[in-house]
């Protein structure tokens, strides 16, 4: 067997027994601005060729992480490794990562080809080679022949693709994307989501995407990290985050949920009996909780079953008769708000797309129910 040097561009050793080196790895990454901790002890690894998202509300520190990876900020503590090599202290123009900025930051003083060729010119690539590679990358993003156009002549979606091409032409180890869809309108954003995922597969490069829009993160990513207040709350697949949230924050942030505060009256392992502050009695599930604990309960509107009579929901652990207090029609995402007749608690319920409930009206009496494992309980951090 020959010994290969570190620069050997051979096929990826995908079938090796030990896990391969992540393209990007952060260990104990911390950033403080004076007394303010923006990022606190964040650890993650991104395997080669995957789409990794950091999802969090604005101000949670996700942009700070991205700027540290790109090299615009130095971490207070911790390591950033790209393909196993530490890049801490390496200036941004020497790092094998490139970034697609929030407002794209295309160079308005240059045309499309000059924008894409900028990085290659900096590397001292020959002119003929630059125009060949620019032409090739324009074909890969399905915009052949726009090289001579000005940036201002392009549509929002085209600019998006040019911004990605400008980075991808440099063949970075990791591409960072800082909410690049934020400035687009809704329809374009939906189609760009699919296109971004396709581009990622096309270039087979590791993408690290930050966003506050869960739709973007869940649809595109192989793995999503949910971030809050400088910390990672949970890292997992979109499905994990949605069905098995690890913390109250994740349960509330990913997807929609009815959220009640309450107290555990009985705990048998993971099965709990809870009374909410408004006096609604519920069966719920949650781990590591005991009787008397204050908890927050999350129930997703789409997991709640509706029936015209009590029989329809009799087998659910939680069932009640409610009165419709308002109808919120929004096509496939239609909702009804119902009020529990006993406790007066308001509950948000997704309206099924069957014709059965089409004629539902305000004030109508219906029955709703859900299983105990659909009501997730987490210790209430606020009390």
């Amino acid at each position, binding site marked *: 067997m020959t010994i290969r040097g570190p620069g050997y561009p051979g096929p990826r050793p995908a079938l090796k027994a030990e896990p391969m080196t992540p393209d990007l790895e952060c260990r104990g990454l911390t950033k403080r601005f004076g007394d303010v901790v923006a990022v606190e002890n964040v650890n993650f690894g991104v395997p080669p060729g995957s789409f990794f998202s950091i999802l969090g509300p604005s101000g949670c520190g996700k942009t700070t992480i991205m700027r540290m990876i*790109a090299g615009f900020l130095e971490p207070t503590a911790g390591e950033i490794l790209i393909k196993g090599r530490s890049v801490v202290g390496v200036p941004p123009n020497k790092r094998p990562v*490139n970034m697609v*900025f929030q407002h794209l930051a295309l*160079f308005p*003083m240059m045309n499309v080809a000059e924008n894409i060729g900028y990085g290659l010119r*900096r590397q001292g690539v020959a002119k003929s080679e630059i125009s060949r590679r620019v032409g090739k990358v324009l074909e890969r993003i399905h915009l052949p022949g726009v090289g001579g156009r000005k940036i201002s002549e392009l549509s929002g979606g085209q600019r998006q693709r040019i911004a990605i091409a400008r980075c991808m032409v*440099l063949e970075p180890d990791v591409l960072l994307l800082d909410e690049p869809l934020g400035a687009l309108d809704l329809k374009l954003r939906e189609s760009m989501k699919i296109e971004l995922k396709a581009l990622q597969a096309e270039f087979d490069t590791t993408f690290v995407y930050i966003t506050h829009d869960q739709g973007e993160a869940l649809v595109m990513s192989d793995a999503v990290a949910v971030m809050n207040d400088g910390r990672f709350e949970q890292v997992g697949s979109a499905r994990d985050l949605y069905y098995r949230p690890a913390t109250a924050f994740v349960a509330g942030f990913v997807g929609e949920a009815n959220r009640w505060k309450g107290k555990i009256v009985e705990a048998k392992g993971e099965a709990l009996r809870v009374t909410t502050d408004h006096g609604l009695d519920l069966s719920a599930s949650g781990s590591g909780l005991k009787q008397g604990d204050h908890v927050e309960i999350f129930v997703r509107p789409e997991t709640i079953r509706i029936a015209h009579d009590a029989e329809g929901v009799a087998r659910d652990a939680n069932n009640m008769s409610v009165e419709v207090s308002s109808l919120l029609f929004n096509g496939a995402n239609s909702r009804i708000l119902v009020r529990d007749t006993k406790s007066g608690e308001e509950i948000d319920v997704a309206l099924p797309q069957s014709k059965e409930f089409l004629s539902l009206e305000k004030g109508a009496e219906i029955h709703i129910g859900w299983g105990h494992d659909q009501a997730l309980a987490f210790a209430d951090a606020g009390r």
Partner: protein
Amino acid sequence: MTANRIGFYLLLAPLVLWLGLLIILPHIDMALVSFRARVGPRQYEASLNNYAVFATEPLYLFTFLRTAVMSLLATIITLLIAFPVSYYIAKVAKGRRQAVLFLLCLIPFWVSELVRTFGWIILLRETGVISGLLQSLGLADQPVEMLYNDAAMMLGLVYTSMLFMVVPLTTTLESLDDAVIEAGYDLGGSATSVLREIVIPHAMPGIVSGCIVVFMLSLGNYLTPTMLGGKDSLWFTQLIYSQFIVRFNWELGAAFGFCLLFASSFIVWAMLRLTGQTLERTMGEGA
């Protein structure tokens, strides 16, 4: 509709009056004066004699060229000093600091130009502050005269023009998105290449509009060359002044005035052509 129209003309009136009475009429009169020659008491005839005098007298031509070249030099020096200052104010300083720094550039202009120039005289003269300081430090064994030469005059011109370069530069540099500069670095650019390929092309309208204003101000400056310049530092405006006031030769003075106007127009046009800018763009974005 008619009320609208009356309003429009009323609003237009001050501009038309200003342009007509203060700029166009005097210039027409000046042009007429410059094209006549006095043949006797209160007797004039049309003539190109005044322009011929300008073209054939070496002192006039030399002073004319000197003024243009020195003004260009003053413009370039002002740009070189003002660019880093503006970049710092627009891109490095943040919030309150930014406002304070900008104000610091403005404060000297609260004092009249005359007083400001006297300030330089106090600093630079033989018995002045700098001369005294050099002597007390033992770096000079006798009073040093730093006034009345081209360097002192250049100092005065640059100082007077500074603000008019800093304002348009700061404005255009502020309009450059920080992310664009960061993208320049992110894609492998060094500080010099980012400056050359991104910052300067973006700031070009501001650079050109600042240069035009500073050049015009220097070319038409009378006070600074008179007060700080030496016997050899003759400025073209001084020639115009002496023709009008000292020699009472309005005809030649008017011709000189027009030569200066043509020269400045030509140089501004050349500057715009060289940098590929249009007057519309530079004035629109710069101011």
